[in-house]
């Protein structure tokens, strides 16, 4: 069963050459979900990108004991899969983005509240919420061994969000994949996560730290 270990992870905040942030230490046990909280712009997305090895960083990240620099980057990213907050689409049809066997992990469009024939749709007609859910479906189709989810329910109504939460929960339980779930909604984090950590510029703090009054987005 894979476990995600992050040790002494640091990276430049925002623009290159900017001051570094971290170090971050985190362990996500197999089959569990850790919620990641923190105010907007604090670097949650960069934190996920660093773990997926998409941005330059220092430190050690391991899945199942295998360090990310021990295997080719594309192999690492197929195992440690990042779902961006707004998934982008480049082929004309939804199907073009999926492997030949689209739902090997057992999560189907219906599980996420999507139409059964959604694979045949053109991407131009997709709504923001559909793009987001299909992004998750596209990610799970590659059967990753670890999930990094950046606001996976931000564009969804409450009922659909619950469906997505349940589907991710089932995937994590079935495959033992550790999951890291970023959200602003404290209630959602409490629902999906076994534990919650808050990201600060200098490290991770256990628990949900109240960021104070709402900041403008």
């Amino acid at each position, binding site marked *: 069963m894979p476990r995600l270990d992050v040790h002494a992870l640091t990276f430049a905040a925002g623009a*290159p050459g900017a001051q570094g942030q971290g170090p971050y230490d985190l362990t996500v046990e197999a089959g569990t979900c850790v919620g990641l909280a923190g105010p907007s712009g604090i670097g949650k997305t960069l934190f996920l*990108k660093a773990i*997926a*090895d*998409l*941005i*330059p960083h220092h430190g050690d990240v391991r899945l199942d004991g295998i360090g990310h*620099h021990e295997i*080719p*980057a*594309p*192999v690492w*990213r*197929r195992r440690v*899969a*990042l*779902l*961006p907050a*707004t*998934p*982008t689409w*480049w082929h004309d049809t939804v199907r073009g983005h999926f492997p030949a066997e689209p739902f090997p992990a057992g999560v189907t469009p219906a599980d996420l509240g999507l139409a059964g024939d959604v694979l045949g749709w053109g991407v131009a007609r997709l709504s923001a919420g559909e793009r987001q859910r299909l992004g998750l479906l*596209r*990610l799970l189709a*590659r059967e990753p061994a670890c999930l990094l989810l950046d606001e996976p329910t931000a564009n969804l109504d409450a009922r659909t969000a619950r469906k997505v939460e349940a589907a991710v929960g089932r995937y994590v339980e079935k495959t033992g994949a550790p999951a890291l779930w970023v959200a602003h909604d404290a209630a959602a984090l409490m629902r999906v996560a076994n534990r919650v950590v808050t990201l600060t510029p200098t490290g991770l703090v256990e628990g949900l730290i109240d960021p104070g009054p709402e900041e403008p987005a």
Partner: protein
Amino acid sequence: MTLIRLTPWDLVLAGALVLLLAALSARLKLAIERPLLVGVARMAVQLFLIGYVLKALFASNNPVWVALLAVVMLAVAGRETMARQRRRLTGPWGYALGTGALFVAAFSVALLALTVMLSPEPWYHPRYAIPLLGLMLGNTMTAVALGLNHLISEAAERREQIEQRLALGETYHEAMADIRRAAVHTGIIPVVNAMAAAGIVSLPGIMTGQILAGAPPVEAVKYQILIMLLIGASAGLGLVAAVWLAGRRLFDERHRLRLDRVT
């Protein structure tokens, strides 16, 4: 062969046409009069200079001077390639990459043509070597500049898409495939267009020049076909090399998109 010699008045009259255009531009606020006049002035000065350089070069026929002029032409073409890109690679790469591609493509094709096809005596005879190299460099420069400009600005614009593809486990090669293909298409279009229109819409420059100089049309056509083929080969080769190298340089060894390497 009969060559009708141009008088200064002929050039002044043609120049007056461009002045008229500049005046029209100023009147209609098209704002092209400045670049137009600067371009005209540059063109005239550069061509007169090269005319006298070539005159001296033909007289001496010294390979060292031919090589020197070739290097100057390459350096200027490389600089022009860089200047034509809206966004380009930072540091020495910005210049070296385009210039390197120009060098490999234009020089190898020109060398092949001089030693195997035209075979003047000696093969580096400036009457053949310099115009040929100029044609290769000029056309390859346009192709490389267009291709690199497209590649780099698209990569910057479609950053989210590229990162998404990388995040799904694609290699940098796969994630850039569409953009790279589009960049090569963009770069090669002028060459393909020139070939398609040749002879029907336009009589290309080499042929026109030779016919004006009194050469038999069919001989002029053969030269033109040779030159167009060489241009196609050189432009295509330089373009592909530059786009591939730049596509590589946009990523690091961990297949991460490094837009910090772009201005």
